């Protein structure tokens, strides 16, 4: 992480549209040189927050600082930030070179400077030699690269991206995720990235800010967010999970009629949800220690390529009427029998993988 890129301080930013809170007292510190992702479903406020950073949306109140400078009233064109939009928005009346050179032209650079920086940007995004192409002749992936080159050609210290990969097909998207991350690492930039794709966020980010209903729900590294979601929304939104209603009564946790062990037992009495990640479950033989055992009947067994998805209906006598999902890797479990529909089965979840959310 480079230290000379600008950091961003967002303080108590609120934006309302009538009675609707698009952003509600959001405070967030983006560290210098960090790749931070704003993750949330559509309508969560993540794009509004990005537009506040870009200067297109003026918050009702709150403060946004780039470094030590307050920018909340600064118009977008004076903020000196690079921005990549969802639909590329390349200028169709300019060729690739002119598109990328446009911000340099705006900055009054000489022709040779523009040319030089455009060539450099083209090579960074691996489009050398395509400068004279028309925008309409480019593939989706190439358009994305041009949009990116245009946003970094003037070496901004802050790069904002609004779901830049959402229009690409899955394979290209996954390649670009890694490439974008490498690009971020090689340039001195603080990057704020908006996506609704939790896997993309997990792949690319230093930290993820999960946003929903205009509020910052959790901020942390991908690992923290995934293994320690602090509420049911995040547990459900990030990764796969089965959420089973559980009860805590005087420090004991019950799922239906059965007591279960959980990793952080210090919860007040009340109703919670037990988060079960499908890949953390395993076929149990009854001898494991510190493990919750769930018995039930396989309702569905679905081949999904790299893994086998099992839908298990739990024994209603012990756990109540509920089912959970389990994922068995299809890789090296040769010789292991894949449970089939209708089979009685017992699966285990380690105590350390068992946690409750509200």
């Amino acid at each position, binding site marked *: 992480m480079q230290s000379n890129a600008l950091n961003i301080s967002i303080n108590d930013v609120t934006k309302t549209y009538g009675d609707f809170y698009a952003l509600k007292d959001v405070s967030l510190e983006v560290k210098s040189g960090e790749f931070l992702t704003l993750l949330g479903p559509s309508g969560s406020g993540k794009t509004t927050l990005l537009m506040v950073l*870009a*200067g*297109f949306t003026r918050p009702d109140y709150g403060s946004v600082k780039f470094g030590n400078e307050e920018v909340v009233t600064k*118009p*977008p*064109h*004076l*903020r*000196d*930030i*690079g*921005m990549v*939009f969802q*639909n590329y*928005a*390349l*200028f*169709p*009346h300019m060729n690739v070179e002119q598109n990328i050179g*446009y*911000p340099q032209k*705006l*900055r009054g650079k000489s022709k040779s400077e523009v040319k030089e920086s455009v060539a450099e940007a083209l090579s960074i995004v691996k489009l050398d030699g395509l400068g004279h192409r028309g925008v309409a002749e480019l593939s989706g992936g190439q358009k994305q690269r041009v949009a990116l080159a*245009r*946003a970094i050609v*003037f070496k901004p210290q802050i790069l*904002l991206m609004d779901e830049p990969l959402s229009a690409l097909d899955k394979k290209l998207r996954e390649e670009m995720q890694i490439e974008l991350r490498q690009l971020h690492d090689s340039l001195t930039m603080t990057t704020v990235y908006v996506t609704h794709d939790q896997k993309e966020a997990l792949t690319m980010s230093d930290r993820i800010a999960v946003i929903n209903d205009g509020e910052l729900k959790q901020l942390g590294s991908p690992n923290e967010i995934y293994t320690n979601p602090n509420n049911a929304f995040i547990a459900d939104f990030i990764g796969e999970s089965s959420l089973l209603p559980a009860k805590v009564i005087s420090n004991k946790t019950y799922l239906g009629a059965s007591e279960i062990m959980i990793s952080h037992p210090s919860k007040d009495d009340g109703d919670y949800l037990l988060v079960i990640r499908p890949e953390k479950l395993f076929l149990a033989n009854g001898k494991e220690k510190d493990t919750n055992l769930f018995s039930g009947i396989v309702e569905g067994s679905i081949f999904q390529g790299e893994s086998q998805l099992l839908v298990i209906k739990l024994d209603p006598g012990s756990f109540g009427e509920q089912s959970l999902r389990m994922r068995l890797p299809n890789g090296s479990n040769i010789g292991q029998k894949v449970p089939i529909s209708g089979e009685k089965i017992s699966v285990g979840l380690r105590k350390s993988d068992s946690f409750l959310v509200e």
Partner: protein
Amino acid sequence: MSFLNRNVSETQIRLKDRLWLYIFSILVLFLLIVPSLVVIPMSFSGSQYLEFPPKSFSLRWYEAYFFSSSDNGMGFNDWMGATWTSIKVAVLTIFVATPIGTMAAYGLSNSSARVRGILFPIMISPMAVPIILVAIGLFYFFVQFKMVNSITGLVLGHSLVAMPLVLIIVLSALRNYDMNQEKVARSLGASRLRAFFEITLPQIKFSIISACLISFLTSFDEVIISLFVSGGDNSTITRAMFLALRDQIDPTIAAISTVLIIISSGLLLLTQLFGDKKD
């Protein structure tokens, strides 16, 4: 007659099933065009009076148009003077109606659906109100400001009628334009005004050109407002023609009409050419 069984569409429709439609369509097109074209042969008539078909041919009515004198005793300047007034007013109308209409379209396309719903009908109201009411209103309004019979008054009056057309043309161009591009330009360092001129305008330029031509034509063809607010040396050609027709039926009118048809259809053709280009 086997050609009658030829298929004329992707489905199984044969020429003989469709023939009535083709004949009907040709008839409609014919009726649309012919009344305007009738004046062309009439303009080459050698007779004193408007007649169709002409019995003899001459160019004397063109001569009467191009070399008319101003002492015609009909309360307007000579034909050529009136033509130049029309052209001057039409060109000035372009410069008033097009920028205002374009700005209005830009404003509307950047505002919320609610604001658009309120403002749009107000802005196109000159199109909806009978033009004679607009003309009467303008007349009394201009009297207050001593603008009757002035070029300024005429240009303002014509711009009032042309502006809604500009608005509609530019608005539809902006509907197909991705306003995000302007946002991108601004994020890259362009002020909003610069973003409009360097990014938006080049992409809607053909519609703007169309709007200019339509503004010109609207003013050039306009007669009712001209009748009320123009006069004397500032009569437009359409007003002069109208007055001339009232007093005397003279084939000069046919000659002028022919020239006007050529100018108007030429411009209309240009509009089509530019309109066809994808902005």
